[in-house]
């Protein structure tokens, strides 16, 4: 494995993410309560000023505070959803590879079937079926609909391992399936698993924002990059900063996580570009 932080792009990506995470952590201490409206009537859609660097929204709330808060929530949702997807993908993929034969075939067919439902549709569908879904449920759902690609990658790697001498030797020494998965398949597929999970963060963030933008994700008044965009849409002509600021943060965050994923890929497999 070569060092993933060699390229300037990867370092810039890491810096961007660190900055966003830091802002999300510190902002609540310095900025006004994101739910508080300084003056319910007089402070609607204020133009950016010293008191409100990014202005206020239609409910007179400070946009910078909501943005900092929302960034944190979006990052957390994206990260947790990607971790859930990575864990499920590893479980199914390695399980299928270790089981082999008919079980492998059936598991992968099932994975194909689930993967065929477009992810945004699947999440929307579940949101329709579960009114009042809490934030945790939504995050979990993003993960549950995103593991199939990971499972395919991990299963392919696992199958290669299963056919190799190392597993045959371990078997000859009496290793059980669990031990083979944990000691042989998982360490070998770890690189690909990490890369796929990292690339899944940006994807989940985009999905969160998109669905929240439609009003079917994170529920107001909780701020997230998607709900901020949702709030900004109706005042696009009067207060474009409501739309521009969260969109920029989202784009930067997604670009940074994707760049990081690419850097990890290069690090694990320098041959592939």
């Amino acid at each position: 494995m070569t060092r993933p932080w060699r390229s300037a792009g990867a370092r810039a990506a890491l810096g961007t993410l660190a900055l966003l995470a830091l802002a999300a952590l510190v902002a609540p201490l310095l900025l006004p309560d994101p739910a508080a409206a300084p003056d319910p009537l007089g402070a609607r859609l204020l133009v950016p000023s010293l008191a409100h660097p990014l202005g206020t929204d239609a409910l007179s709330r400070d946009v910078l505070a909501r943005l900092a808060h929302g960034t944190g929530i979006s990052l957390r949702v994206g990260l947790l959803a990607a971790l859930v997807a990575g864990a499920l993908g590893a479980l199914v993929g390695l399980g299928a590879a270790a089981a082999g034969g008919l079980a492998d075939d059936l598991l992968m067919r099932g994975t194909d079937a689930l993967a065929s439902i477009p992810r945004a549709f699947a999440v929307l569908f579940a949101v329709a079926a579960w009114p009042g879904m809490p934030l945790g449920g939504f995050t979990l759902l993003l993960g549950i609909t995103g593991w199939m690609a990971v499972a395919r990658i991990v299963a392919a790697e696992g199958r290669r391992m299963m056919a190799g001498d190392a597993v045959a030797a371990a078997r000859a020494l009496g290793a059980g399936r669990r031990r083979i998965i944990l000691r042989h398949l998982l360490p070998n597929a770890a690189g690909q698993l990490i890369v796929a999970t990292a690339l899944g963060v940006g994807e989940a963030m985009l999905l969160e924002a998109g669905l929240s933008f439609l009003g079917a994700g994170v529920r107001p008044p909780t701020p997230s990059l998607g709900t901020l965009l949702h709030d900004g849409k109706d005042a696009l002509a009067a207060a474009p900063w409501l739309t521009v600021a969260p969109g920029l943060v989202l784009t930067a965050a997604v670009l940074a996580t994707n760049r990081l994923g690419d850097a990890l890929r290069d690090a694990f497999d320098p041959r592939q570009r």
Partner: protein
Amino acid sequence: MAGWLARRTAHAAVTWAGAVVALFLLLRLLPGDPLASAADLPPETRLALAHLYGVDQPLLTQLGHFTAGLLHGDLGTSVLYGRPVVELLAAHLPATLLLGLAVLLTDFGLAWWLGNRLAARAGSRADRWANRALLAGHALPPYWLGLLLIWPLALTWGLLPAAGLADPLLPAGAGATRALDVARHLVLPWLTLTLTTLAVPLRHHREAVYETLASDWVRAARARGVPEGEVLARHGARPSLGPLLALVGAWLPMALTGSLLVEGVFAWPGIGWLMAESVGGRDLPLATGCAALGALAAIGGMWLADVLHRLLDPRVAA
């Protein structure tokens, strides 16, 4: 070929059936109440409703009814519109296909044209900047870009319509005027989707051509004096069609989902817009129908990609 086609088609059908069953189970296993929208009604009415929709039956019986209906092309009745789901899907499909097809043609046309040229100049300044621009486009949330385009082009300057498929005030039957009107409505959603989706086909194609250009047969073609333009097209790009063909398959579902949010921003009355409507209105039969159609598009797309691959690549068929 015939035997292969039959097997491939059967595989696609089984996969779709699996997806639909998964949707059905998801619907019933989630903690939500299928009759949530009728929560205020008196208990006896709720019971009657439950009976009408069949949700009082055991899970397997429900699945049986659902599958039987599906086989007859019956996806139930929309709660929101009071019309058969199949009818609603059919009514909104053309708008989605129009948008999807327009994006498909531009994306793949540009991927081929520009991808070939960038591959031939790999590592050049143009190649590096194009790559950066594409990555940025790929990271842009499409609906956000849509809003950014609407703001000056539609709201401030009024150059293009911001929403809808056509001007409802236009008299019916005005053929050319109407076509122009639809085209004007198409511009912003088309531009938004193209800018955000171009990266994937273009980068894949560029990469494939770049690798192929290092192959022995490209050197051999140069050695016999083949002009550079033909070396690029016939010996570089032709054998590298694989990734583009595979992505054609991904385009069918993209037309439905990628445009899900864009259709929302531009009030483009397609399947994505319908899906969003169904969620807002808690219209479960309609949501199921949309999701099943999405799965069908994804599976059909993969089927199409495999068939195209087999038809166009002499190495596969044998």
